[in-house]
């Protein structure tokens, strides 16, 4: 059952105009306090260098400076591995690593002051590629790797600092040698995906102040208020309750506004200044803050003559840059997404999260699945070609159905991969001819384990207030939760308020990531509303999902709830220029039950459009660790006139539970487009699919077909 696009005019009965159309919405960058100062960061110009001396003697007297000496005694932090200090104290590890900061009376005064700080460095050898960084003799980034006590470190990590590895995740399912021995056909390929920038329209922005009684208050655009509070508590040696995080709506995030970004630097400046300090990043600094993991992925896939998959071996190298951030989690999810939603008796996966001297890479819409699906689903088409099978039939023959075991050992339930594949194939006209067409399917885990909790309070005027830590970044979570509450309370949605989350007030929530919030909070809400109806005043509910994987075997519960989808693309290629044109893109996403149709449609359209950018042109370029396209002129994101025909199905089932869909449609898009190219005989291994790469692959095919057999 698919839901059609809504008619204009449907679904809006509000009297007050939405603050997004009047400009009245206030983001983190708009928060102001009296007497506040403005911060600016001083960054390393070297990819790897010892910090010898930071000289602030030229600064005007009214400028507050933060130097390594100010932060040396503070705690190490990191949401999964404690590998970071507030500033680079001993060594700067990437071009852009903060080594000092200033606070001044205006943004301009701060920028000017930052230029007056002189830093002496001793340059050290650097490494930028993840595979090279694991080789003997490569420069080592971190000597000790302590596992974080933050609850974002939710799985066993296997760091190997002597070869720059912060996590090595394995899946050991079946006997891989026996599996390949049983295979009639084996295909093997290596793929690369580049780093990409989230480009939230609103840059990172935060403001900190210390109260007279020594509490730290931070206003910041964050998807992770509680994880942030835990790390700040560790840095400043404070009990968590002495720190208050207020999380205004964000002008986009896409994974970038997670964990500690600049909040610690701003808090240190505010403490030293005795005044509130605010930082709003310049656009180019976004590329020096957090990006998507570049990956190298090797896939070996074996099957019987009839297309039955028997063995798959995958090695992933996820380049996490200078600091781990949540890279171990990304590498793990990349690892367990890479087998794909198939029944395969013998699966081995080794996924390495590797330090290099690049800016840190972390959560990015798709969270490892984009890279994994590119490699995995491109390989399925290589296999289909080798076997002379229809790529759709090959997938349908092997795809997981309810009751099957995944390679993690967990039994799959409520899975609809075949439906998604059939839907996209139908919409792209697969059966009328496959030339120029390609498809791809995805399974993506939701954060497991995690906990969501929520309080619903009855107000004197008959309205209700929801106290909930879920972050709003444009995905519509606040409205979805209000709609669910209103439905259960039997009142119009306007009578349910959702104040800006404040950790002094809202109960704990793991974080707003992995498309979990509507599903998890929606379940927590049921109990909260039940309690409120009982006592008429206040109700509390929580939802816990339990599970996790053994990092050495990959066995356990990867996800209690799977995001499922498929994409299909139709393309045209100008073989003279390599220009690739996507004519039509269709996705089918299993949505279970849609709460707010326009928001769900927007999330899916946005995922597809972001996937299109990743497929066709988004790539951060580096020269010896220096980002060379840190602006929106050289780094392009999709615009309205770049789009092909875009259609999709949000598949619902009567009585089904809610399925998060904030990022499901993104990962299969590049692979579907890559497979459409492959149907024309053009095999491109690396993203994005630039005219240069398409032309080169097209030339390679001509040479190959011209060669004597």
């Amino acid at each position, binding site marked *: 059952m698919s839901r059609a696009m809504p008619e204009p005019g449907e679904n809006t009965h509000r009297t007050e105009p939405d603050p997004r159309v009047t400009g009245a919405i206030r983001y983190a960058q708009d928060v102001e306090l009296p007497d506040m100062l403005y911060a600016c960061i001083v960054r390393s110009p070297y990819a790897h260098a010892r910090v010898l001396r930071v000289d602030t003697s030229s600064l005007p007297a009214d400028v507050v400076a933060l130097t390594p000496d100010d932060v040396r005694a503070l705690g190490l932090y990191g949401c999964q591995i404690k590998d970071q200090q507030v500033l680079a104290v001993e060594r700067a590890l990437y071009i852009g690593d903060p080594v000092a900061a200033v606070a001044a009376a205006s943004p301009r005064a701060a920028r000017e002051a930052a230029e007056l700080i002189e830093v002496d460095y001793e340059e050290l050898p650097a490494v930028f590629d993840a595979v090279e960084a694991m080789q003997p003799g490569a420069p080592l980034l971190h000597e000790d790797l302590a596992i974080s006590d933050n609850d974002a470190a939710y799985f066993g990590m296997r760091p190997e600092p002597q070869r720059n590895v912060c996590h090595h995740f394995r899946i050991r399912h079946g006997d891989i040698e026996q599996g390949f021995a049983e295979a009639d056909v084996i295909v093997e390929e290596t793929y690369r995906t580049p780093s990409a920038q989230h480009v939230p329209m609103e840059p990172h922005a935060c403001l900190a102040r210390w109260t007279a009684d020594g509490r730290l208050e931070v206003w910041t655009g964050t998807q992770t208020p509680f994880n942030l509070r835990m790390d700040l508590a560790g840095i400043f040696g404070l009990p968590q309750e002495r720190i208050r995080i207020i999380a205004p709506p964000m002008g986009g995030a896409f994974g970038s506004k997670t964990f500690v970004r600049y909040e610690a630097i701003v808090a240190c400046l505010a403490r030293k200044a005795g005044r509130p300090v605010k930082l709003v990043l310049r*656009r180019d600094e976004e590329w020096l803050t957090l990006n998507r993991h570049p990956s190298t992925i090797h896939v070996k896939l074996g099957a019987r003559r009839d297309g039955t998959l028997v063995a798959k071996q995958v090695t992933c190298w996820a380049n996490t840059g200078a600091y781990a951030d949540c890279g171990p989690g990304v590498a793990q999810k990349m690892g367990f997404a890479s087998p794909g939603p198939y029944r395969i008796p013998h699966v081995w996966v080794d996924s390495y999260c590797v330090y290099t001297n690049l800016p840190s890479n972390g959560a990015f819409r798709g969270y490892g699945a984009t890279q994994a699906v590119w490699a995995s689903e491109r390989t399925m088409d290589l296999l289909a070609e080798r076997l002379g099978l229809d790529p759709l039939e090959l997938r349908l023959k092997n795809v997981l159905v309810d009751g099957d075991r995944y390679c993690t050992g967990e039994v799959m339930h409520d899975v609809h991969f075949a439906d998604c594949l059939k839907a996209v194939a139908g919409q792209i006209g697969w059966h009328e001819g496959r030339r120029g067409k390609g498809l791809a399917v995805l399974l993506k885990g939701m954060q497991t384990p995690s906990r969501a909790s929520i309080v619903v309070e009855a107000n004197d005027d008959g309205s209700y207030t929801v106290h909930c830590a879920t972050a709003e970044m*444009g995905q519509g979570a606040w409205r979805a939760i209000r709609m669910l509450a209103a439905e259960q309370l039997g009142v119009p949605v306007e009578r349910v308020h959702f104040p800006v989350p404040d950790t002094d007030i809202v109960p704990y929530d793991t974080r707003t990531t992995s498309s979990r919030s509507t599903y998890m909070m929606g379940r927590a809400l049921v109990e909260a509303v039940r309690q409120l109806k009982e006592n008429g005043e206040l109700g509390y509910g929580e939802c816990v999902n339990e599970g996790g994987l053994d990092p050495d075997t990959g066995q356990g519960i990867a996800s209690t709830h799977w995001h499922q989808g498929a994409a299909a693309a139709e393309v045209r290629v100008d073989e003279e220029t390599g220009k690739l044109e996507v004519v039509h893109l269709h996705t089918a996403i299993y949505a279970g039950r849609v709460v707010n149709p326009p928001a769900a449609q927007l999330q899916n359209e946005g995922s597809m459009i972001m996937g299109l950018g990743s497929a066709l042109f988004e790539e951060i370029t580096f020269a010896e660790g220096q980002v060379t396209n840190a602006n929106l002129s050289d780094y392009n994101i999709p615009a309205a006139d770049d789009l092909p025909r875009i259609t999709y199905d949000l598949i619902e089932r009567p009585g089904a539970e809610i399925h998060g869909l904030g990022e499901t449609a993104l990962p299969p898009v590049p692979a579907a487009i890559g497979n459409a190219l492959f149907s024309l005989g053009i095999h491109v291994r690396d993203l994005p699919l630039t005219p240069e790469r398409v032309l080169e692959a097209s030339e390679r095919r001509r040479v190959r077909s011209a060669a004597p057999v």
Partner: protein
Amino acid sequence: MAAMEIHFTLNGQPVAVQAEPDEMLLEVLRRELGLRSVRETCGLGICGACTALLNGQPISTCILLAPLAEGCEITTVEGLGGHHPVQRAFEEVQAFQCGYCTPGMILTIKALLEEQPAPDEETIRRALGGNLCRCGCYLKIVQAAQRAAALLAEERRRQPGPGAAPVS
């Protein structure tokens, strides 16, 4: 650098503000006039998040030197009041997610529809080339522009006057 005073009409009201001679209009609108609907993203005049109308035409305030606004009429989304047909259309269609680019989109579409009351989809997409939306709301933004064109046409029908003359 010595600050200078500049004068312009903002959302119908005359204003006089202090600005540095090398400052961009965006900074002045935000700092001196407290407008928050004009927002910096690219800082290069590419993304349109800082869009205002200057004498009715969309411009990127992040690359317009503030003194060049002297004597001009500047309109921001705050000046539309909240119930302008383009704003109503955005609400009806729900053509936004985070809302950061929305004021710029609304102003660009307002200017487009004043020049071309019934643009086709292709024309709308091309007109939006200078307004980026990272949430990827473009399909619904185009729908909102079409809906706004219909609402404006309805308004013209209801209030015949000099503005209602058909464009030849």
